[in-house]
């Protein structure tokens, strides 16, 4: 087991872009090696050691590497981007793109996460113990697919466009969700325990379950009786009727 602890020395305002912070990049590296890895700070690069206090315990493969991040990293973007294994625990709020395109491993965030959390992720797990921003599990501009695999769990609320273009994997949000969750869903599963607005628009396939209130239902779904999930009975809606060959299922109260 290798444990790397990073503590941000001083809170930044110009964002740090820290895609270099992930277990694949840290595994079996020494403290000095890790401190020397470059991250972007504005339009120049800085060694991690200049921005973070680094401490390290053990040396191991990516799968057995755990990164603990302390200090206020709410202006540090891209932590855990592209990670394939291991674990990251962030004891603060975190900036955009955390865990984007990850394929494996686990990220735990004990704080809020800004937008594009787990964007286009393909595997692994993200646990957000706080609120999320826009485009949790979504796709980047122009892409046909957002999240394709893995699981994102959010204990708080998230904003608009949750799981936009999701093509696989699962998202569970315990709180409320903003506008248009699961828009263009093509095979993912989204469970919203709180309230939301206009879910499942242009859904092609996959499932969206809303346990709370739906503020505005899209005028693009066909009623198809009821369905029971975990002992709860939902109205079953099929659509979006405007998408050719759609097989999406929307369950609402």
């Amino acid at each position: 087991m290798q444990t790397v602890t990073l503590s941000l020395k001083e809170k930044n305002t110009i964002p740090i872009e820290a895609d270099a912070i992930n277990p694949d990049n840290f595994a079996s590296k020494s403290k000095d090696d890790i401190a020397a890895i470059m991250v972007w700070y504005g339009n120049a690069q800085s060694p991690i050691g200049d921005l973070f206090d680094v401490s390290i315990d053990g040396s191991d493969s990516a799968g057995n590497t755990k990164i603990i991040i302390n200090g206020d990293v709410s202006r540090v973007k891209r932590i855990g981007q592209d990670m394939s294994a291991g674990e990251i625990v962030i004891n603060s709020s975190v900036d955009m793109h955390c865990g984007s395109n990850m394929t494996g491993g686990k990220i735990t965030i004990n704080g809020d996460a800004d937008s594009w959390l787990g964007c286009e992720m393909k595997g692994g797990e993200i646990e957000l113990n706080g609120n999320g921003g826009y485009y949790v599990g979504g796709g980047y501009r122009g892409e046909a697919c957002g999240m394709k695999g893995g699981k994102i769990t959010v204990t708080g609320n998230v904003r608009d466009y949750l799981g936009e273009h999701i093509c696989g994997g699962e998202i569970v949000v315990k709180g409320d969700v903003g506008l248009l969750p699961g828009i263009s869903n093509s095979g993912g599963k989204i469970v919203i325990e709180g309230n939301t607005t206009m879910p499942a628009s242009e859904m092609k396939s996959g499932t969206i379950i809303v346990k709370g209130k739906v503020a505005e239902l899209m005028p693009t779904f066909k009623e198809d009786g009821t369905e029971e999930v975990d002992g709860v009975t939902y109205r079953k809606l099929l659509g979006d009727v405007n998408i050719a060959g759609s097989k999406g299922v929307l369950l609402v109260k």
Partner: protein
Amino acid sequence: MSELLIKNAVVCDPINKINCEKMDISVKDGKIVDSVSSGAKVIDAGGKLTMAGGVDGHTHCAGKINVGRFMSPHDMRMTNVPGLSGKEAPTATTRAQVGYNTPNAFAIGYRYAKLGYTTIGEAAIPIIGARHTHEEFEAIPILDKFGLTLFGSNWQVMEYIRDDEPEKLAAYVAWGLKASRGYGIKIVNPGGGEAWGWGKNVSGLDDPVPNFDVTPAQIVVGLAEANEKLNLPHSIHLHCNNLGKPGNYETTIATMKLLENIKSKRDRQVLHVTHVQFNAYGGTSWRDFESAAPQVSDYINTTDHMTFDLGQAIFGPAMTMTADGPVEYSNSRMLHAKWSNMDVELEDASGVVPITYSPKNFVNAVQWAIGLELALLVKDPWKVMFTTDSPNGGSFVNYPEAYTYLMSAKRRAEVIETLPEMALGRMNIPGIDRELDLYELAIMTRAMQSKMYCMDTKGHIGVGADADIAIYDLKPDSVDTSVEYAAVKKAFSGATYTIKGGEVVVKDGEITMTPEGRTYWVNAKMPQAVNDAMQVDLVQKFKRYYTVNQANYMVEDAYLPHPVEITTEAI
């Protein structure tokens, strides 16, 4: 200016009938000359393959490609072909680069140069949008450029053909070329662009264009006659009706036959048919879809009046863009893909739709085969221009990969192995063992272009030609291109040297300098009296129907900082 001596070059120069022979090349002031002084800078080619700079005579590099870029921010981070795609930060010599199918203008210049290409032709300029095309031309570094102007659904053209006014038609075409600073006549789905103004299409050569009482066949013949009356350096450049539809090969052959009796004073074809891969489809539906490359090739082998280009499909993501508006709309509905459209007042239509050619998809697999079949079944390589109709069949950065398909049956067999069983019965490529040699490749990628565009300073390295030269890391004496296809691909992916106008712009696959390229356009002269008569009609068009005043319509000189004006006299 400067002198350059390239020693020990093994030259493949089909225009001058030089078949991979060792020789020296002398360059002075940007031109190939007989000899240079002893003070000339020397490059030792070390026995490497040396050709004229490549000429891509049909590519989408300025204008409509911007619509493709605009709608595909995801393309900007695609890295499908390492070193020739994706994002790159600026350097001391180069601007920032992005993209794969729709790279930014800078990347287009750098990447073509890396492949050893030095001249490119934009395949479609709407006259009213020509200013934009030239702005993008100016942004493309290094390369020389030219563009073909759209006339195939133009109101003035259709009216003159309907009213049997061949003189005025020629005058209008000459004016349109000047207004757009174009090099030749492009016809896309003749009449179809106008029909698309009402959401319709024309179904074939004899289906009259709604409201204009003229048929696609009449448009094609009328413009071909005008083309020869103006004695233009290029023939008409034609995208046939019914593109992309099963069974369209019959329309394609009928269109080719239609032009058999057109005569030209120039020593070139009277018809160029473009991206024939998309127009050589057999069957009656996608269910019984099959290659009709043999039928089309058989016909081409019997005639000498035409040339064509491939529109080879490359597996992976591509971006279709064409003035064929109705085709793009049906593509987008069929593929459930995003769709951009631009109908152009009084002139034409256009559309842009992304596509992915998958080797697992039976239709795509057959499309891949058709392009290769056309190249290999047509016996005379001087009739064949190599293209992917970039980025319609795939990005030009895949050319080196595609060369290996043409040069190696072994390489083809490897690909064929990955294709679905069902596709194999619908294609002929598995039974074709012809392999192109370097000489034939040089014909299809630069020499035939010199002839078909009557560009006598391009596509060869005889004395008097522009000193546009590519040196590739291949030794023609020792390489076996049918087996060593990996080496072939590598060599063509990053030239050892690309020399443009006598200056070394690429060395060892990297950009070394970025001079500005020139723009070729044709100023065709018609008798003043005919011009004046034509203007009377044109003034009405502007007064009543255009939303741009005639005074603001013509591309101004400011947009061609490095023009090359070719003048012709009407016959």
